[in-house]
């Protein structure tokens, strides 16, 4: 698959459209037409997992239950990700527009935004925007309401089924899957749950059309994506870039000239060392990301980076399933013991195998993805782990 050149794009934040027009036009289309558009666009979830958005909407629309919901996952908790905050600040009405169009397609009357607890400061502006949005829906006679529910600071509540539990007032613990949310989500009703950014892209696809979106990106990773760029970079911030670029080009643009590694996709993503920059495509065919790009230069200890991540997971695991709860503790204690010389370097192999087990046995995406950062950092920076 040929890669794309790094290219800045302006879809999400573009101001050359009036949300009211897009919404009115969108709501006039048939459900089939909208679904076809979203499916054809190749849009995949922007939260990280990358499930095709059109399929989610389609499956939910096929359910015969009377009550359905659309939920916007705004529990942006992945370390190094801060793009949803920006989107909700700058273009909240586009997010709501995406929710409304989804609601039309699946037949939902209520939409919920699950807002990260730490984003309380966005609440007042969002409430105001919702008021405006509701007024417009009333004007055009579309029966749909958006509500905001606040998270309380647990990373795990960004996992969709834990998020539903939390929304229902219960402890945020992931559910067993199947059933998936399209069949049984919030209040055990068919639910579409999409990331903030996904909803805006869905909304914008209704405006620009699937064809235009498809022109961007690669076969597996269509379109563009909003990146949260941080770490050792002179120009940290939010950038909307076409998918499919080489990490080499990315580092060229954003690095400080001394980039040693890039953590793609946050603590649950992969660490790519300098020697692999030129072979690594940012996208689902290479290394996927929910938006987090953390650059590290040669002054950084990768042991400290890893320890920080493992500590994060140790604390943020919900604690219900064994591999994740105890595995994270063992990984942390294990690398500390190796560093202190209490365990031999061979113990790293045991820990790697443990991480593999966590990947295949954990109940949800949290425990399953701990191995991503653990193995990619240990594999590439073994000597830093030991000495």
């Amino acid at each position, binding site marked *: 698959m040929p890669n794309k050149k790094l290219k800045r794009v302006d879809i999400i934040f573009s101001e050359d459209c009036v949300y009211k027009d897009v919404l009115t036009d969108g709501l006039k289309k048939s459900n089939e037409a909208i679904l076809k558009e979203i499916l054809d666009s190749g849009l995949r979830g922007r939260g990280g997992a990358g499930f095709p958005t059109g399929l989610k909407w389609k499956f939910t629309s096929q359910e015969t239950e009377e009550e359905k919901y659309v939920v916007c996952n705004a529990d942006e908790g992945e370390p190094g990700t801060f793009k949803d905050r920006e989107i909700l600040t700058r273009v909240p009405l586009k997010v709501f527009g995406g929710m409304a169009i989804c609601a039309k397609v699946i037949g939902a009357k209520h939409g919920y935004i699950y807002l990260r607890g730490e984003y309380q400061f966005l609440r007042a502006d969002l409430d105001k925007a919702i008021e405006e949005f509701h007024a417009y829906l009333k004007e055009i006679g579309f029966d749909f309401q958006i509500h905001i529910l606040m998270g309380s600071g*647990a990373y*795990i509540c960004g996992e969709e089924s834990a998020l539903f539990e939390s929304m229902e007032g219960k*402890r945020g*613990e992931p559910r*067993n899957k*199947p059933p998936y949310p399209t069949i049984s989500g919030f209040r055990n009703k068919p639910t579409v749950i999409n990331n903030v950014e996904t909803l805006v892209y869905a909304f914008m696809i209704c405006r620009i059309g699937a064809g235009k979106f498809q022109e961007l990106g690669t076969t597996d990773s269509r379109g563009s994506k909003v990146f949260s760029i941080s770490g050792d970079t002179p120009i940290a911030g939010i950038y909307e870039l076409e998918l499919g670029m080489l990490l080499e080009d990315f580092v060229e643009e954003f690095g400080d000239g001394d980039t040693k590694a890039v953590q793609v996709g946050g603590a649950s993503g992969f660490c790519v060392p300098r020697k692999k920059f030129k072979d690594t495509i940012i996208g689902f065919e290479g290394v996927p990301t929910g938006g987090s790009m953390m650059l590290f230069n040669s002054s950084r200890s990768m042991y400290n980076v890893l320890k920080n991540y493992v500590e994060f*997971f*140790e*604390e*943020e*695991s*919900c*604690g*219900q*399933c*064994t*591999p994740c*709860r*105890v*595995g*994270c*503790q*063992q990984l942390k*204690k*294990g690398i500390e*013991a190796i560093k202190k010389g209490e*365990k031999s370097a061979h113990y790293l192999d*045991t820990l790697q*195998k*443990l991480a593999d*087990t966590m*990947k*295949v*046995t*954990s*109940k949800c995406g949290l425990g*399953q993805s701990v191995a991503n950062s653990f193995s990619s950092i240990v594999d590439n920076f073994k000597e830093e782990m030991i000495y």
Partner: protein
Amino acid sequence: MANTVKLKIDGIDVSVEAGKTVLDAAKKLNIHIPTLCYHEDLCVAGNCRVCVVEQEGVKNLVASCAMPAQDGMVIHTNTHKVRNARRHVVELLLSEHNADCTKCYKNTRCELQDLAGEMVINEHMFLDLVPDKNYTIDKLSPSIIKDDSKCIRCQRCVRTCQELQHVSALGVAYKGDEMKISTFFEHSMYEVVCTNCGQCVIRCPTGALIEKNYLDEVWDAIYDEDKHVIVQTAPATRIALGEDLGMEAGSIVTGKMAAALRRLGFDSVLDTDFSADLTIMEEGTELLTRLKRALVDKDPTVKLPMTTSCSPGWIKFIEHMYPEYLENVSTCKSPQQMFGALAKTYYAQKKGIDPSKIVSVSIMPCTAKKFEANRPEMHDSGYQDVDLGLTTRELAVMIKQAGINFKELPDEKFDSIMGQSSGAAVIFGATGGVMEAALRTAYEIVTGREVPFENLRITPVRGMEGVKEATVKIENVLPEWSFLEGVELKTVVAHGLTNANKVMQAVKNGTADWHFIEIMACPGGCLGGGGQPIPTTPEIRKKRAEAIYREDEGMAIRKSHENPEIQQIYKEFLGEPLSDKSHWLLHTHYQKRKRV
């Protein structure tokens, strides 16, 4: 067939009903998949991950307990990947677990230990996390000890407390490495809404939740020459004790149990069934009295429906959850406590023994009975009425400690007095049994005739349905009971506190017109009590219930009021039901408690 799915497990085709899990399908093929968090009585948690299997075409392993069987699935339960993963999971659990097995009450009876044994774990693969943990042991409750260092966080107890018992004394607190099973603000089990029912204890796979045992205290009393140690055995013990001593579920071991107790050295081997019969006399009379006050005297203060009071788990539940209905609870003490009060009065007098020398021990299917024995209300004899409450399991331990070959024991009889009983008393051990026993007696008192059911089997109140209603029409009554002529006596039976809660909600909402309510805290009644042999499953409880009704039908006397020792005690000591003496020794009142 539309409702079956076909899949392949380890190369063998199997079809199961739609909705069944991969684990169910494997069971059907007699393929054993290890489990820890799974329990037949509870909703699926899928959190221990011990039961993982490999599904072709799926990258990750799947938890067989939580994965619905689907058409065309190809499952492997014994691959390299599966074995490695299960080994890792068990090793992880062990690393967080205080695995000092020889110091554990559950040593040799622990599911985690069994699993470690199966996997032949000689050396621990991972670092020991226990020293880093600030584990606490809560020993304040007289019934249950909660030891967090043994907990594997399977949440069976949490699900039990919430789903089966509607109590939620136990819940999950904190997250990540600090996640633990906890009570409200980490108060002691003694201070929270815990009903001491012990349903968590019989479902805990390890030693994290155990009964507080009084083995040493009982042995010390037995060895003390100066003490007269008497023992009473509850109805449900005699159909379950055998399970802990190598016998099949549903074995009736009444005679062997009496023999074993004698060999253990108890001075007198007596029967709670005696005081169960007494309960029927008192409680039946109380019900009839309340009905008379309501129907004849039109007394607005009389409280109906009246509920039973035998189950101490239920009593504590109502004290916490529905204190405004405490007046509806029968004032009768439970059979254990009636027995205790009489042991140090009537029995002591008859035998000419100084009551201060009597040590009164009870063998109960119950952990809540330990709490009940320690209630400050229960000192009516002038002493603590029941000194030591043991579970069926503790008795089994004592029998093993004494080197008794239980299976080969001859059948022996209980001692007298307070050792004789009726079939009505035996069925106290099953849900609906108190109701059935009460109806057998009350109906006959009022009409002079036996209850109109074949062979005295009042089947509407039997069985494992959660809430059972039955109406008995009272006709052709004796002259002194004319006010009951034509009355339809409406009764309801509930077992498991979630069902009890449903009944109480109906009472509270005014949607029910029952006269008499039987409630047992434990699923199945006492036969499924928190002090009974482990494990408990619907199948095992069914077998125990069958045994109880077999025992009833094998008894010469089937009705409480026909028990000669009951007739004797009223003649010699109590006078009549609800007499002053009865009130002093056999009745009590309960108190409102906080809901934390």
